[in-house]
């Protein structure tokens, strides 16, 4: 389905960053990605430029880029940590970021260096409120 052709979805079990990123936190690890809103604003993703495994990423700073045909967008880290896995499948199928932003379109997995940072992230209700404002 083309981006923009359905309403946005925002799973209950994720934590959100105001720069339109999500984190699925499991113990001291987290999976990160961009929200439905972010992929819809960007349009069809054609390229994901990931960080290297082992790289340190810092909350509120850019750690990767996603590009659509006409636009580049920095991906902001919702949490700090060390990259332990990169979604390599996106090299061949970057459109998964549009089609399944919370599933197959995940971007990286990190080992959290400051797990307490998650308290500053938004719940789904707060994030939806941000989108509506």
């Amino acid at each position, binding site marked *: 389905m083309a981006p*923009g*052709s359905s309403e946005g979805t925002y799973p209950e079990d994720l934590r959100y960053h105001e720069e339109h990123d999500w984190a699925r936190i499991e113990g001291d690890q987290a999976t990160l990605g961009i929200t439905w809103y972010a992929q819809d604003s960007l349009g*069809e993703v054609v*390229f994901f*430029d990931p960080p290297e495994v082992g790289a340190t990423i810092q909350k509120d700073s850019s750690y990767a*880029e996603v590009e659509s*045909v006409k636009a580049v967008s920095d991906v902001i880290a919702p949490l700090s940590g060390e990259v332990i896995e990169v979604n390599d499948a996106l090299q061949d199928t970057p459109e998964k970021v549009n089609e399944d932003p919370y599933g197959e379109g995940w971007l990286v997995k990190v080992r959290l260096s400051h797990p307490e940072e998650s308290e500053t992230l938004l719940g789904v209700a707060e994030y939806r409120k941000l989108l509506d404002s």
Partner: protein
Amino acid sequence: MRTPLYEQHVQLGAKMVPFAGWEMPVTYEGIREEHSAVRHHAGMFDVSHMGEVEVEGPGALAFLQRVLSNDVARVGVGGAQYSVLCNEEGGVIDDLFAYRLGADRFLIVTNAANHETDLAWLGRQSRSFDVLVRDVADRYAMLAVQGPHARAVVSRALRIELPPRFHVAHIQVGRRPALACGTGYTGEDGVELLLDPEVAVPIWAELLDAGVVPCGLGARDTLRLEVCYPLHGNELTPDRNPIGAGLGWCCKEATGFIGAEAVARARAEGTAEQLVAFKIEGQGIPREGNPVIRGEEEVGTVTSGTFSPSLELGAGMAYVRSDLTDVGTELEIDVRGKRRPARIASKPLYAKRS
């Protein structure tokens, strides 16, 4: 400003963006889909933001011969011709098509961002000619229908005969006079319709019903870039000569147009930089403004870059030092700090398989 089709775009769910003072659709269902519709079927673009200027009078031909770079005398009534509008230094004020509607009457179609500049320039230059230069942008909505099936669909849906490529014809649509032009900006066959704004909405609806895919400025840019058509403001600027841009073919210095001496000099002596097309080898998408690197030296600048939907790789155009412009030359593009290997490619970047 809004075109007469603004509501149609919004109803179709288009993403609207500001462009040269207009609110224009950048995409409806996705740039790749729209791009592909034009390459393989038929797509339509609302280009009503483009400007129209009418030039009429006994001195019309002599005047246009003076301001346009091409040999306007070679255009018969019903013909169309591409030119650049140069300043005295040979810099490009705008690039445009001129349509000859009568022996002493021409219509020129300007880029939206340059319309006011062009009008002022043409007005000033026209003083010594027996000619009237009129801004008629409000009189026309403009629809570009492009793609291998575009002509067939348009002539069937609107029940009209279309002129051949690079020609213009007076037609009737919706019982109003209109112009059909065998021109476009996509590298595909097609027509551009200059319509009475009053009939733009029903004509758009008829073409939509006939299966023509609405396309936005995003696809317009990727389509033109793949076939290496220059865009004013990117490849063409008042500081650059048309020779460096590879537009020597539409400059006929013998006609004595404004800027002809500078153009003749550039043609004889060469320019420091020339416009080339390139493809990224591997990953990365070049963007406007990216530096072009050879070894450790900066040797040029990207003027337009994109992900090419037809080639499925990063590609673009760049001004590069003239000794490095051979097809096959290896360069690097500095894409936000990452060096991406690239190679100069022959123009156009995309050509239909025959």
